[in-house]
């Protein structure tokens, strides 16, 4: 069997909810050995106990191994350290300094594995006056500036859920990969201090410069964009069905008018240039809606795209999973076995990209403590007696 891309790489994680698990999943899905240290009360994967076989938790632990270990206890901590000492990388996303207090900080781990690469990701970073503050991506998206620029200018900021949770994991993975490459060349490990606020703000960069250079504070603008009109989501046939359409060039504008069967509109003084269309944008949107409302969103998208105008159905999750032909062609969703052979679940691909010389194989998420034997004996070097003792003491579940 061909070697998996990250075969031979070992990562240990102590993670919860989103950012941590998604970071290591980029490695587990491509063949790295990723070991979750977890307990019944602190199960990784999120609410609902993160129980394997349930919803989103299942989706974030594919290909991983699980060891159930309570490292709040000194014996458990010793075992945890031994396990981590065999790893290339240690990843955690608890609130700032939590693991330092428990004896699993970088300074502790460097003593037992000098070249370890450790990544900590939390809300605001490991140093500074706000380092220990815990929260979730739902709120952090506000601190990183995204809620303020989302919504209508005449209304409150809009809710965007945990948007920053989607920005952080790729940056974490990038930092780890760069550190791995650096270590391969120099033999040196390091500590990667990731602040989800600081990675989030990377995606605000042009607006930061607009403030620092021009003193302009960016606000929300609905769906408007200065360089395109029409540019909006337009209501189509059916209940709450919409299609986004964006017209950037005069050529596209002419094509657009042809598609809607109103070539005269192209030369109408109110709409003949981008400047004119921007000035009369409300009226323009009304006219566009009058056409789109009589067509399905899919029809609007197809007619526009075939005429060279960017358009797309505002898809919900069902559209994505069941109807999108492009995602189907790319095998975006695949069925993965649930742990314990209790059926399958639909998963997105193992990586955010396709590689021409490597592929992902998605394997089930582990049950709690499923790999205890292997990890305690082979990695931590514990004897059967020691393991039984710890189990009796509640350190191993």
């Amino acid at each position, binding site marked *: 069997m061909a070697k998996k891309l990250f075969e031979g790489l070992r990562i240990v994680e102590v993670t919860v909810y989103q950012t941590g698990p998604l970071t290591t999943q980029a490695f587990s899905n491509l063949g790295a050995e990723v070991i979750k240290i977890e307990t019944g009360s602190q199960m990784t994967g999120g609410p609902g106990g993160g129980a394997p076989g349930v919803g989103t938790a299942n989706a974030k632990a594919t290909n991983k191994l699980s060891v159930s270990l309570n490292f709040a206890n000194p014996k458990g901590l010793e075992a945890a350290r031994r396990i981590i000492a065999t790893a290339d990388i240690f990843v955690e996303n608890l609130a700032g300094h939590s693991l330092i207090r428990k004896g699993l900080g970088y300074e502790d781990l460097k003593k037992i594995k000098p070249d370890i690469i450790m990544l900590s990701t939390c809300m605001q970073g490991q140093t500074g006056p706000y380092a220990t503050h815990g929260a*979730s991506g739902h709120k952090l998206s506000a601190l990183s500036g995204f809620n303020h620029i989302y919504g209508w200018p005449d209304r409150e900021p809009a809710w965007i859920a945990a948007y920053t949770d989607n920005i952080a994991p790729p940056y974490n993975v990038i930092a780890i*990969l760069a550190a791995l490459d650096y270590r391969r060349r120099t033999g040196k490990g390091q500590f990667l201090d*990731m602040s989800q606020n600081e990675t989030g703000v990377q995606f605000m960069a042009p607006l930061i410069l607009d403030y620092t250079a*021009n003193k302009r504070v960016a606000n929300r603008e609905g*769906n408007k*964009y200065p360089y395109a009109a029409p540019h909006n989501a337009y209501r189509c046939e059916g209940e709450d069905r919409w299609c986004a359409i964006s017209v950037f060039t005069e050529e596209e504008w002419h094509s657009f008018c042809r598609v809607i069967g109103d070539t005269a509109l192209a030369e109408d003084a109110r709409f003949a240039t981008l400047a004119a269309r921007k000035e009369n944008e409300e009226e323009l949107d009304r006219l566009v809606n009058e056409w789109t409302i009589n067509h399905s969103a899919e029809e609007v998208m197809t007619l526009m795209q075939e005429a060279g105008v960017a358009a797309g159905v505002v898809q*919900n999750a*069902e559209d994505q999973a069941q109807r999108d032909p492009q995602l189907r062609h790319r095998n975006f969703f695949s069925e993965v076995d649930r742990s314990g052979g209790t059926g399958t679940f639909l998963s997105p691909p193992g990586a955010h990209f396709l590689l021409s010389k490597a592929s992902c194989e998605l394997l089930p998420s582990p049950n709690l403590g499923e790999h205890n034997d292997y990890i305690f004996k082979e990695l931590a070097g514990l004897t059967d007696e020691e393991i039984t003792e710890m189990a009796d003491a509640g350190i191993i579940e």
Partner: protein
Amino acid sequence: MTEKTEGMLSPYRVLDLTDEKGLICGKILGDMGADVIKIEKPGGDATRNTGPFYHDDPDPEKSLFWFALNTSKRGITLNIETAEGQEIFKSLAKTADFVIESFPPGYLDKLGLGYSDLEKINPRVILVSITPFGQTGPYKDWKTSDIVAWALGGDMAPYGDPDRPPLRISHHSQAYLHAGSDGAMGALTALYQRWSTGEGQQVDVSIQEAAVHSSIHHNPTWNSERPPGKRGEGMPGAGHDSIRLWPCKDGYVSWSHGGASRLGPSRPLIRWMDSEGWADDFLREYDWERPDFTRIPQDEMDRLEEPTARFFMSHTKAELLEGAVKYEVMLYPVATTADMLENPQLVNRGFWVDVEHPELDDTITYPGAFAGLTELPLRISRRAPLIGEHNQEIYEQELDIAKEKLFILKQDGVI
């Protein structure tokens, strides 16, 4: 001009052919020390006409959008649609580790510069291709824009007000940034594999898929465990609507009463309110730990939210951020760009960095490193390149093309 200092990716060279759909990819690699060469068509990339602009002057050398996404890159001009341009590109590709591009699928192949051509010149080269829908498939030749990518990506559908259209995040494209960072992830993943195989490969990034990956909270619906939510609806199955974004003295704050929820327990906030005299008996004595908190009726939730709302109104965003840390409350203010520059945590961590722009006779403050590294720090080594700024450095000094030849190439529109 700041000197190029050592970074984690210093040994590597990147040829950056991207437009706005992929610019951040080269920035990420460059800020980590790679030698990134931004290649633009003669006269400069069309993306330079995208604002905002420095002092609102719509000059292609003053686009703040361009500045933000092209840090740490050098810049040359080259017309790869000419035979000579293709030869020059190939000679650069010989020693490149990465080529990143965002042309339509098949464009580079037609020019004889696709992956199968490049790997013959340099078997170690890694080609990162960022396109609207990927290299293959029924939509592969379709166009995209940010609003189209978000629409098809799935993250427009759940949000917004039911009486208005679904929304994208305003201003510059977020989808392109996700795709660009996916490209950087793919590039370094391929680099890892190259250590054992000695070969490069092609990395295929779809902008639509980058947006779909951002909607993984859809997982329960993908798995038919929950119907797609109605736009603007709160938590499904909840007994009430709860406020998530509250007005405060000078803006808004993000908070929700979660009872005993791990992601938003109410007690720390009540403690804080109490310490300032804003909690009444009802709030103080309320059983926040009740397991059925998510199903309490609307009028009960309103009763809890009313004094909370008045508490928030009495404080500024800065005060609320300070108090959230002090009292361990999981709330954050809805920050504006102005607020972010004042954020004590970001300031303390040296997150904001000043970058020199000698042509503007000015220094502009940028967001800095996305990671704190204990070995070689991540840093912006230089501002974005001017049009053809490094033509001489690269063409004359590195490729040894004679000055006279360069003059002719310029006349012929090759550079």
